[in-house]
């Protein structure tokens, strides 16, 4: 399993701290599994709140192991920028897709599922299922 290609995860938030903290949280919940490639793309290149297309494309390239890249985004420009980059056609890995999921819960589900060696469809399904988890 150690040489298995794992799905990569990109976490896009308006805030660098949110993106990196959610990555840390999700990886912390994996336990002893293989190291899932996770990259945070938070905030603008200048360190402010917002979205950077450059940070997103770099993050996606860095987690691409050939098994697909699942991108999760928080709000507004983060979602729209990922969609616009996907529409460009040559900015993100061919296998990259925007996953429709709640950011924190979806990231945990995606990373834990990716750690099992699951394929991109399974990772996407697990992340999307997080919408169904009611807290009250």
């Amino acid at each position, binding site marked *: 399993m150690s040489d298995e290609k794992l799905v990569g995860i990109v976490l896009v938030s308006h805030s660098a701290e949110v993106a990196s903290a959610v990555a840390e949280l999700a990886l912390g919940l994996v336990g002893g599994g293989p190291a899932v490639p996770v990259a945070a793309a938070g905030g*603008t290149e200048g360190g*402010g*709140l*917002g*979205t*950077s*297309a*450059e940070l997103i494309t770099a993050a996606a390239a860095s987690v691409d192991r050939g098994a697909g890249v699942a991108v999760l985004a928080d709000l*507004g*420009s983060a979602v*729209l*920028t990922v*969609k*616009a*980059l996907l*529409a*460009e056609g040559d900015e993100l890995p061919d296998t990259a897709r925007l996953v429709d999921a709640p950011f924190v819960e979806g990231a945990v589900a995606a990373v834990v599922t990716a750690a099992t060696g699951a394929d991109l469809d399974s990772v996407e399904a697990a992340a999307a299922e997080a919408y169904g988890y009611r807290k009250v």
Partner: protein
Amino acid sequence: MLDADFFRRWMTATAASVDREADRLTALDSPIGDADHGSNLRRGFTAVNAALEKEAPETPGAVLVLAGRQLISTVGGASGPLYGTLLRRTGKALGDAAEVDEERLAEALRAGVDAVMQLGGAAPGDKTMIDALVPAVDALPDGFGAARAAAEQGAEATTPLQARKGRASYLGERSIGHQDPGATSAALLIAALADTGADAGGE
């Protein structure tokens, strides 16, 4: 006929207008947004200007595709992918023709506006840039001046609307009574097109 130079001047005129009006756009974005619309668009169109000078694209379509790419990369807020998609799709719809007529531009711009509506999920009446762009495209067959007037009226008509998209939508009824900053900047884009057309002796 409109050549690459016309489209480059349209982008330059938009950049100048955004630069002049940046403070007003940000002021409009303060009560209902996150108060960065003017500064974000200024950063984006400054990058557009720099890219157009450096790369000198040779067709109308290439000018708009390059401009759109710069906006997606540099704006940092939702207006980047939205305006970037508008210009890129319009540019792609123009193809690689060396010159286009006004009818072809109108058709291409409609394709661009449709792409923006698809990307953002917004429809007319949602208090967004669409409320200026759709009337402008509808009026474009009557000339650039008609499109400018329609865009400005469309932007002003967003004031009594309740926002249903973006950051302003969280405010619910409190978004009523404020002109939408995105519709306002969209009207600047169309006004710059009209100015460029007038300078070219079109109207």
